[in-house]
């Protein structure tokens, strides 16, 4: 519980350190429903991937639908966990616990699909 709520707010402080170009900010939103193992796994996987590939260029917003169920409509969330890439456009959705790093990178357009 504490693990996710600790990073619930955006974390731009760290990302500013390497002075990234402003237009290349990756705005990510992770939807979870409570502290399920899948959600925790997704969050830690996401953090790891971002640190490795988008160091300093990303922000993660975690939305717990159990607390804010009304937010599920906006991004048309069905599956949990769902990662939504709000920026850069177009919007992409990645569902699952993000355990397959390769597929996450393809999904986030960080690596072209073979």
């Amino acid at each position, binding site marked *: 519980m504490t693990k996710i709520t600790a990073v619930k707010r955006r974390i731009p402080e760290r990302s500013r350190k390497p002075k990234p170009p402003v237009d290349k900010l990756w705005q990510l939103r992770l*939807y979870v*429903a409570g502290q*399920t193992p*899948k959600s925790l*796994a*997704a969050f830690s996987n996401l953090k790891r991937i971002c640190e490795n590939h988008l160091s300093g260029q990303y922000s993660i917003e975690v939305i717990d*639908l*159990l607390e804010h*169920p*009304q937010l*599920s*409509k906006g991004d*048309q*969330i*069905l*599956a*949990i*966990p*769902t990662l939504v890439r709000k920026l850069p456009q*177009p*919007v*992409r*959705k*990645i*569902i*699952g*616990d*993000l*355990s*397959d790093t390769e*597929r*996450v990178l*393809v*999904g986030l357009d960080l690596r072209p699909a073979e």
Partner: protein
Amino acid sequence: MPHHLKGRVTKRGGHRPAAPSTPARLPRCPTGIQGLDEITGGGLPRGRPTLVCGGAGCGKTLFAAEFLVRGAVRYGEPGVFMSFEETEPELEANVASLGFDLAGLVGEGKLLLEHVHLERSEIHETGEYDLEGLFVRLDHAIQSIGAKRVVMDTLEALFAGLPNEAILRAELRRLFRWLKDKAVTAVITAERGRGSEQLTRHGLEEYVSDCVILLDHRVNDQIATRHLRVVKYRGALHGTNEFPFLIGDEGLSVLPVTSLGLNHTVSNERIATGIPRLDAMLGGRGFFRGSSILLTGTPGTGKTIVACNFAMAACRRGERTLFFSFEESPGQIIRNMHSIGLSLEPMVKRGWLRFHSARPSLYGLEMHLATMFKEIAKFKPEVVIVDPITSLMHSGTDYESKAMVTRLIDYLKGGQVTSLFTSLTQGGQALQHTEMAMSSLMDSWVLLQDFEGNGERNRVLYVLKARGMAHSNQIREFLISDRGVDLVDAYIGPNGVLTGSARAAQTASEKAAALAAQQESGRRKREIVRQRAALERQINGLRSEHEAGAEELRQIDEEVGTQTRQLNTERTELGRLRQADGSVSPGRLGGSKSRNGT
């Protein structure tokens, strides 16, 4: 095995004392869909999901929408419509055709529309997930308006949108369980499977086990009919037949035929047919009010004429009559009836008579029936005429048609409406044959028939059956003239039934024969009189002859006397002259003299 038995015995023993309490009936959730609640004995299983499946365009979404709207409006149960295919504005527009104001209900907080958009191309799958988001969303929607009813239309869109079927199936199972736990009555729609062994394309029936309703839209002889069938209804009796249903401008209506009981109130009142002789054939008083009358006949036997007379009689009594015509336009009927001196126009103008004409092929059977129901409900007639029911019946299959007529008759009888159906018997068919054995539904059956002979066709009428009243067994000739219709006794003689000019000829020849017989006897009488007169004359002749004989005898006697006297006189004279003595016997002398004389 012994353990099993033992368990059973104890169980049974344990049950016994509690047995008298009646088992709890599965509570129902009325759908408000006309007719469906009758079939299902009250509605869908309350608090459980129901699967509604069917092919494209069979009315699944409208079914679901009506379920929610009726629930919200009529039963005070708010509902959530979760649509996977149509957006909220689309949905609102689509059901507006049924007169449902979704936006208004949403505004009142009685309804919640929730469009779930799922685009597979936007979704990448990495690892484990579940559909908790959907649950949260649905839960939130249910909570926000206190929904009692939920529609998911069509849940199967998930199969197209989500790549992992194994997860999806596990989640669906959980979803239905969850819906039950929420105690909402849910309608889940699904596409019909391609094969006959599968109800839905993705086998959703596997999860929804309480109630499954199948909708169908098929075309018979170029006329499309919708059907509804309750495939499964766990723990409840239900009509298992396929019922035609239709989507009208007031929503769906299912037309159950078997659900209606036979418990109409009956009337002893009799109503005249407009043809006095026909009344006379029916015990002198016509048909029972509220009964159903069948009028069959081959083409051109005057079915419509009898029907119009019946209508006219009703109008004259001041009863409203609704005339459903499926072959002729109102104008045509009115014109044609003028030719027999029946003026229907004033009745139409006064509002006693209303015509409703439609081509049978205009739409399917169930639509016709619904239209008729609507017209009947609107006009509230005392007499309904359907002319002819047969052409209507050709727009459906046998079963459908019979079901429809049954339904119609039940409906009319329920309202104490007297109904007259004309039925065309095709040439070559047995006369006492009716379409789909319809006659058994009817209380009275009047048959019109053609008699062909002597180079002419003549109409006859007879009463084949009339439940509950004495009726004539006679065949009557049915005459149509410009003064109306009349029934006359047909000639029944050794040569069978004679009608028309043959009857007239027969009557004439009988008259002639009678006259001839009369003349003959007169002649014979006169002959005898003449003979008697002749005999009389003969007798008179003989008598006079006889009398003449007697006269002659008398004259002879007289002559003899005279001669004797003369002889005596002469002898006396002679004797006197001869002065003979008197001793000479005059007798002897006279005797010889008379002998000589003769």
